[in-house]
C-alpha cells in the first residue's frame, strides 16, 4: 500500500473513531452537563429564597399555616417550605417523585434545612425532569452538527497537507527509481523539499547511484586496459609465428612445432576473449537495441554450424512453430548464446545421435527447448555447468568450460531463464524461457 493511501486511511479512520466515540458519549455528556446546570440553578434559587425569607420574614410566607407551597401552572417547578425538627439537617439534591394535585411527577429536588428565629425549616425546590431534559435532544443535534462540520473541515485540510507533504517522496520515487536504466547517466536536479528526511533520502540515492556509476566506469576501463594488456603480447606472438611459418627455408619439423605453438596460442586467445566477453556482458557494454526473430536467428546459427553435424552423423530437427520477435536485444549475443548451446549439443553428442529444437507457449512465456541425445551430465554436476572453467564430462577432453558461462551471462543480461534437465548417457535438455513475449503463428 502506498504511504499516501496509508496516511489518508489512517487520518480518515481516526476521525471516524472520534465521531463514533462522541456520538456514543454525547447523551451522557449532555445529561451530566444539564444535571450540573440544574443543580447550580437550584442552588441559586435556594439562595434567593433564603434571602427573601430573611428580608420578608418567614411568617410572610407561612402566614400561620403549617407549610408553604407554590408551583407553576404546568407544575414544572415548585417551591415548598415547612417547619422541621430542630435537629434535622438535610442538604441534598436528588431525583424523586412527588404527587402534585393527583399527578405523580418526577422532579429534581433540592432539600435544604435552615434556621430562622431559632426554628428549623425544610425547603424543597423542585423542577420536573421533563422540563430539565427538554433541550437535550436539540442540544445533542447541534453539538453533532458542529462536530461533523469540524471533522470534515479538518479532514480536508489534513488531506491537502498530507498530499503536499508526501509530494517530494513521490517525486524522488518517480525521478530516481522508476524506469531508471542503468547506467544512470541523466542527472536530474535535486528534488525540492523542505523536509529534512526527504532531502537526505534524495541526496543518498543520488550519491549511491553515482557510486555505482563510478564502479561501473572503472570496470569498463579495466576491461579495456586488460584487453589491451592481454591482446598485445598475444598479437606479437601470433604475428611472429606467422612470419616464421612463411619462411621457405624452414625445416618441416620446425614448421610442425610452430603450428603446435600457434594452436596453444589460439587457445590462450580464445580463453582471454571469452573472459573479456563475459566481463563486457556483465559490464553491460553491449547495446540492446535490436529486434530479433528467433526462428531466423536459429536458422542463421545452423548455417554457421551445420558442417559440424557430419562428423558424428548427427540429425537435427528444428520445429519452431512460432514467429517470435524479441525486442531490445543484442543480436550478436543471442547468436552466440544459441551457437554455444547447439555447439555443445553437437560436441557432447554420440555417434548417430540427434538434436531437437522445439518451442512452446506457456501463458505469456515463450519457451525454446534444445534436446540432445548426448552423454549427459550427472545430477551433481548440473548446478555447476554454468561456472567458469568448470569442466564436466571429464572423459572428453574438449572445451574449456567457458561456453556455458558465456551462455549464462548473455541469458542473465537479457532476462532469459535457463533450465537444465539431464540424464547420464541419455542426453540433456536446455529450456530457455523468454518472459512476456508476444509470439504469433506465422
Amino acid at each position, binding site marked *: 500500500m502506498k504511504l499516501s493511501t496509508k496516511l489518508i486511511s489512517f487520518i480518515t479512520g481516526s476521525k471516524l473513531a472520534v465521531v463514533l466515540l462522541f456520538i456514543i458519549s454525547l447523551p451522557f455528556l449532555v445529561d451530566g452537563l444539564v444535571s450540573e446546570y440544574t443543580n447550580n440553578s437550584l442552588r441559586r434559587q435556594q439562595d434567593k429564597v433564603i434571602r427573601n425569607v430573611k428580608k420578608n420574614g418567614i411568617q410572610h410566607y407561612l402566614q400561620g399555616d403549617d407549610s408553604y407551597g407554590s408551583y407553576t401552572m404546568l407544575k414544572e417547578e415548585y417551591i415548598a417550605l415547612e417547619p422541621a425538627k430542630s435537629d434535622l439537617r438535610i442538604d441534598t439534591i436528588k431525583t424523586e417523585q412527588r404527587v402534585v394535585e393527583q399527578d405523580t411527577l418526577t422532579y429534581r429536588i433540592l432539600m435544604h434545612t435552615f434556621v430562622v428565629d431559632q426554628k428549623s425549616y425544610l425547603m424543597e425546590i423542585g423542577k420536573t425532569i421533563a422540563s430539565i431534559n427538554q433541550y437535550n435532544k436539540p442540544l445533542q443535534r447541534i453539538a453533532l452538527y458542529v462536530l461533523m462540520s469540524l471533522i470534515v473541515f479538518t479532514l480536508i485540510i489534513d488531506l491537502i497537507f498530507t498530499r503536499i507533504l508526501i509530494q517530494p517522496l513521490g517525486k524522488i520515487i518517480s525521478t530516481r527509481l522508476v524506469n531508471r536504466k542503468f547506467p544512470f547517466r541523466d542527472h536530474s536536479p535535486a528534488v525540492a523539499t523542505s523536509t529534512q528526511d526527504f532531502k537526505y533520502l534524495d541526496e543518498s540515492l543520488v550519491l549511491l547511484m553515482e557510486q555505482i556509476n563510478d564502479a561501473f566506469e572503472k570496470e569498463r576501463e579495466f576491461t*579495456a586496459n586488460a*584487453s*589491451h594488456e*592481454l*591482446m*598485445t603480447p*598475444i*598479437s*606479437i*606472438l*601470433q*604475428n*611472429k609465428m*606467422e*612470419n616464421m*611459418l*612463411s619462411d621457405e627455408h624452414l625445416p*618441416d619439423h620446425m*614448421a*610442425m612445432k610452430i*603450428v603446435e605453438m*600457434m*594452436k596453444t596460442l*589460439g*587457445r590462450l*586467445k*580464445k580463453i582471454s*576473449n571469452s573472459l*573479456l566477453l563475459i566481463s*563486457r556482458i556483465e559490464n553491460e*557494454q*553491449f*547495446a540492446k537495441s535490436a529486434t530479433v526473430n528467433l526462428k531466423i536467428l536459429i536458422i542463421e546459427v545452423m548455417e*554457421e*554450424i551445420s*558442417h*559440424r553435424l*557430419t*562428423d558424428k552423423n548427427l540429425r537435427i530437427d528444428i520445429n519452431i512453430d512460432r514467429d517470435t520477435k524479441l525486442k531490445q536485444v543484442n543480436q550478436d549475443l543471442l547468436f*552466440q548464446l544459441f*551457437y554455444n548451446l547447439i*555447439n555443445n549439443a553437437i560436441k557432447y553428442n554420440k555417434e548417430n545421435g540427434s538434436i531437437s529444437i522445439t518451442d512452446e507457449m506457456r501463458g505469456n512465456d515463450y519457451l525454446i527447448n534444445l534436446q540432445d541425445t548426448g552423454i549427459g551430465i550427472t545430477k551433481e554436476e548440473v548446478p555447476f555447468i554454468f561456472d567458469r572453467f568448470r569442466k564436466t564430462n571429464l572423459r572428453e577432453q*574438449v*572445451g*574449456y568450460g567457458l561456453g556455458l558461462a558465456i551462455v549464462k551471462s548473455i541469458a542473465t543480461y537479457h532476462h532469459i531463464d535457463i533450465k537444465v534437465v539431464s540424464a547420464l548417457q541419455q542426453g540433456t535438455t536446455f529450456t530457455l524461457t523468454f518472459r512476456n513475449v508476444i509470439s504469433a503463428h506465422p
Partner: protein
Amino acid sequence: MKVLIVEDEKTLAYEMEDFLKKAFYVCDLAHTIKSGLEKIGVNSYDYILLDLGLPDGDGLSLLPAAKKHNPDAAYVILTARGNLEDRIAGLDLGADDYLAKPFSLLELQSRMQAIARRKFNIKEELLRLGDFSIDLQKRVIHCGTEQIELSRKEFDLFSYLLLHQNRVLTRMQLSEHIWGTFADDDYDSNYIDAHIKNIRKKLNVHAPTDFLETVRGVGYRIKN
C-alpha cells in the same frame, strides 16, 4: 602500394612491415601520433594502418587530420581494446575497416585487398589456376565455360588460399578466417579437411587439382 603503419608496439610494427614487404607493399613506420602526422604530411599513402592506443593520445584523433592530407588512403583501425564504441567511432570517422587484435597478418592482407577492390575500384584480372579461372569479385570459378558451384564457405576458403598462394596456411588460420570469432579451439578437428575434400571433389570433376597441396602436419597450400 604504399603503407603507413602507425603502431607504438615496435615489435608488432616490425612484424607487420616484414610481412607486408614480402607481399610487395612499401612500408613506413610511425610510433606516435605526432610522427604519424608528420609522415602523412609529406608522403601520400594508399593504406594507413592505425593503432588506437598510442603514447601521445588516441589514434582516432589522428584520423580527421590524416584524412585532410590523404583523403584517398584506405584507413584500417587496429586495436586491442576491443570496445564496441571504438569500432563505431572509428567507422564514423571514416575508417574503412577495423581489426581487433590479435589478428592474423593473412587476415590483414585479405582485408586490405578487399578494400582495394571496393575503394580503389581495382579490376583484378581473372585469376588462372591450372585449368580454372577465378573471379574474386563475382565469386565464381569456371573451368572452360562451365561454372563450378562452391558453397559460400568453400569459396571463402579457396579464395583465401589463393590470395596467399605459395604459402602454407594452417587449419587454425583457415578456420579463423571462415568462422571468425566462432572458430572453435579444437583446431585438430577435421572441419577444414572436410571442406578441402569437398572443394577437391567438386573441382576434380572438371580438371586435376594438383595445385591444392596438403602439407603434412602443417596445413594446406595452393602452389602456382
